[in-house]
């Protein structure tokens, strides 16, 4: 089931399969989830930062809900929507041939839902603190709203946006409750956090120690990167 790196490499590096399997699944799922979240999150963050329309704050609250709700509740909700009868399940069967519960794609969706608010909120903040006079200057230069967004606003906000994407990636990597519920105990859906839980539950203390340490180092690295982005001089 390891589709990323051949086993011979792993043996040479000395990385056992009980580390590499969940690690590769975690990385692949989080990567796919973050691609989607980056595009949609920045876009929505831009709309929320710039738009003045009724219900703007309500929309931000709705899309931030996964941050406030227990991951188990989010997972259960997704499970019932994706697995139980309804339009979402029908769409899945239409597109993929089967419902997405207990599949790899399913947990990617769960991680998208869980990490989306981070990217959206970071982006909104970063975009809203861009000096509006840059945009005024751009308007005076005759640039259309699209070009202003792409050439002026987003580049000026890029530190915060990158930080938001990094946090979303970290959140996707670290998701436990929602992934576990939507993924079940299917091997293809065993991410690092779930593998750690299993290791503790079944008493494999040596494995647990290694798995925990790897995740701690990764989370640390992401956090350091994000705070480094924040510390550098903004324009």
């Amino acid at each position: 089931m390891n589709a990323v790196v051949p086993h011979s490499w792993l043996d040479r590096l000395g990385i056992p399969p009980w580390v590499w399997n969940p690690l590769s699944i975690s990385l692949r799922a989080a990567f796919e989830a973050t691609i989607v979240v980056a595009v949609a999150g920045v876009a929505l963050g831009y709309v929320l930062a710039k738009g003045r329309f009724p219900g703007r704050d309500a929309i931000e609250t709705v899309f931030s809900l996964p941050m406030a709700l227990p991951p188990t509740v989010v997972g259960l909700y997704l499970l019932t929507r994706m697995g139980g009868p309804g339009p979402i399940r029908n769409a899945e069967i239409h597109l993929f041939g089967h419902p997405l519960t207990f599949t790899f794609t399913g947990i990617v969706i769960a991680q998208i839902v869980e990490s989306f608010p981070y990217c959206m909120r970071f982006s909104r903040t970063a975009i809203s603190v861009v000096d509006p006079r840059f945009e005024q200057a751009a308007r005076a230069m005759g640039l259309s709203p699209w070009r202003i967004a792409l050439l002026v606003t987003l580049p000026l906000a890029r530190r915060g946006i990158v930080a938001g994407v990094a946090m979303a990636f970290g959140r996707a990597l670290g998701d436990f409750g929602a992934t576990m519920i939507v993924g079940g105990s299917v091997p293809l859906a065993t991410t690092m956090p779930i593998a750690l839980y299993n290791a503790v539950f079944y008493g494999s203390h040596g494995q647990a120690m290694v798995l925990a340490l790897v995740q701690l180092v990764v989370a640390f690295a992401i956090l350091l990167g994000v705070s480094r982005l924040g510390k550098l001089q903004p324009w």
Partner: protein
Amino acid sequence: MTPALEVAVARSIGEFELDVAFTVESGLSVLFGPSGAGKSLTLALIAGLIRPDTGTIAIHGDVVTDCSRRIHVSTQQRRIGMVFQDGLLLPHRSVLDNVALAVRQVRGRRERRAVAGEWLQRVGAEELADRQPGSLSGGQRQRVALARGLAGDPALVLLDEPLSALDAAVRRELRDVIRGVIISSGVPAVLVTHDAEEAEELGDVVIAYHDGRVTGTRSIERPVRPEPPPGTPGSGERT
């Protein structure tokens, strides 16, 4: 001849009320007055960044704002150039790319950069083309901002306290550059300042502002300089 700019607008913001009317025939007009008199607000209205409560604005005879007829042409469509007090150059682009971004009368990246290069030369900043805006001094930055304001072939150029953030020596030096480049380009201009000396040195017409009203208009006689032979800098040659 159609005046370059006709303004007759009123706008309230909180307790402050602006109510002004004036005409700019051609050349460089200066809005002069103390801080808070409404000069920058007037520029923002002319640029279309803010809408007036009542009144009309026309640039070269084209009505761009008419409150009674609900007309408001967007800033992008107004063919203006703007120069800000702190330049507002995009920090993530080179000087040349910054000016090139404003060029709208030609297409194609190379053509735009060529036009940008010409304007940088006219303001005396051609050696800065590949520099990053963050590495420029105040005077250099404002030269580039001036080039950017003019590079888009505007019908009218607006300058909002372009020299106020610079120290005295640089300010005097750039005064000549501003006036020279603008007059030789033939683009009518409106410049805002609270410095009396600057107003006298730069303006063909000085429009005095106080507390949201125009309190007086004065034309300044300038001795006609003998035309330098064509081909030398400042001869006003323009393709």
